[in-house]
């Protein structure tokens, strides 16, 4: 499990070299402004093709230290690290690891 979570963090944060390509951060985002819980649900749908539960959204928001009703006006509001953290957090959940 620890190794899986490490892989998720490595991939989601782009800590890989070589020819691996990543889409621009903006491509993960819904139309802004939006609440963080909505952003998380949007990312869950893009990554897992599933809708998220309130518990999952709560957990992901906890990971990045923000409340679900935090208003994301632009991607800059997430700082330099939170998008990668959201992506890895979604991948760390049972919704992804048991699908």
């Amino acid at each position, binding site marked *: *499990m*620890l*190794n899986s979570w490490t892989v998720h963090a490595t991939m989601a944060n782009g800590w890989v070299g070589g020819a691996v390509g990543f889409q621009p951060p903006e491509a993960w985002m819904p139309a802004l402004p939006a609440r963080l819980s909505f952003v998380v649900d949007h990312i869950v749908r893009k990554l897992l093709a599933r809708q998220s539960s309130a518990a999952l959204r709560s*957990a992901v928001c906890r990971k990045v*230290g*923000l*409340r679900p009703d*935090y208003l994301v006006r632009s991607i800059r*509001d997430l700082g330099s690290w939170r998008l990668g953290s959201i992506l890895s957090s979604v991948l*760390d959940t049972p919704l992804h690891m048991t699908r």
Partner: protein
Amino acid sequence: MTNTREAVLGTCECEGLAHSRRAFLKTVGTVAGSTVLATAFGDVFRQVAFGAITDNANVLVVLSLRGGADGLSLVVPHGDPAYVGARPHIALSPSELIGNDWMFGLHPALAPLLPKWRDGSFGAVHAVGTPQPNRSHFAAMEAIEDADPGSSLRCGWVNRMIGVIGTDEPVEGAQIGTSTVPTSLFGPAPSLSLNRLSSLKLISSSDPIRQQYHRQSLHRVWDGAAGPLGQGARAALTTSLTLAPLTQDRPPHNGAVYPYGDVGTAMAETARLIRAQVGTRVVTVDAGGWDMHTSLGTSTSGAMRNKVNELATGLAAFFADLGPWADRVTVVTISEFGRRVTENGSQGLDHGYGNCMLLLGAGVIGGRVHTRWPGLGGKKLVDGDLAVTVDIRSVLAEVLKARFPEADLSAVFPSFTPEWVGAVRSTP
């Protein structure tokens, strides 16, 4: 809608700092909703955070010499008249051996362990193996690690032992050297397999508050998750916290110097794990490279000399590093099979049958070879191999009976009645 300070930091911005480690662990344990986990967290708190409670539990280290180590080179039957003739190029003469009696002597590269042989804490059992010959590395290793012939259950003897004596804390059964779980650890009791202790951590920010948020986030999604994956996630969270102090490399104690390489690394990590007193009861260590079909070598050079030297210096350093903890640690070596009695055309040895086991540390009746020696003469061999007169389970059962009296041997080795070997005594 505004982003207040509370919204940014959560309802309790210093949640991770205001709680003591004890309170945090209790909180996590409660969230987990499991008596087993809560108990384990309690152990974690006592042993790691405060260290006030001494854990006097005995520890078994199973060192697996993968590839089929040649027992006739490790513990040499120089007194058997057929020995030299079977190995004209690779036989060791009595004058090269150490710790000799009239029949056996140790490979000279075991010299770092000679003091332990002489003080009686290092012994050997010879002509030991599985009930039936099996020259396949994988099938033979699985038979030894499963130790329940005929059973279709995928459950190894170490896991069955943990199931009998354990509390479901994965640190109780640990495999070091590879992150692949060996057959002996397969089964319902949780276990831990890792390359290095330093890899056993949750990759996270260096910021302690963000680390707390990360853990809390994972607990929120995994504490209620059912099935083996949920158990594994909770165990990973528990264990990574338990062993957090061990994830930073520290020098060995008592001036111990480990050999460079995997064996030295694994033994050093094992010593740290035991010294940390996190509840470890059984550690299995894989040490490959014993499959020597060609150029086995002599007493002073070659593959066998190098592997034996690595093994001996690693074990000597391990016991020195353990210091006072050595009094409750027993090391047992196993290997899937021995090698052929007769050397092949490449001055190596092909897969055989009977082998030897080395026993070191607490409870061992050492300084001698325990065996019902079958002999190396033609009619005494099994298809050209050393016969097995001692079932490996008898040796393991004797170790468990002496060092883990709470273990139900009939559960660890089902449908097996151990024979007396006389290699281990019960000690406090």
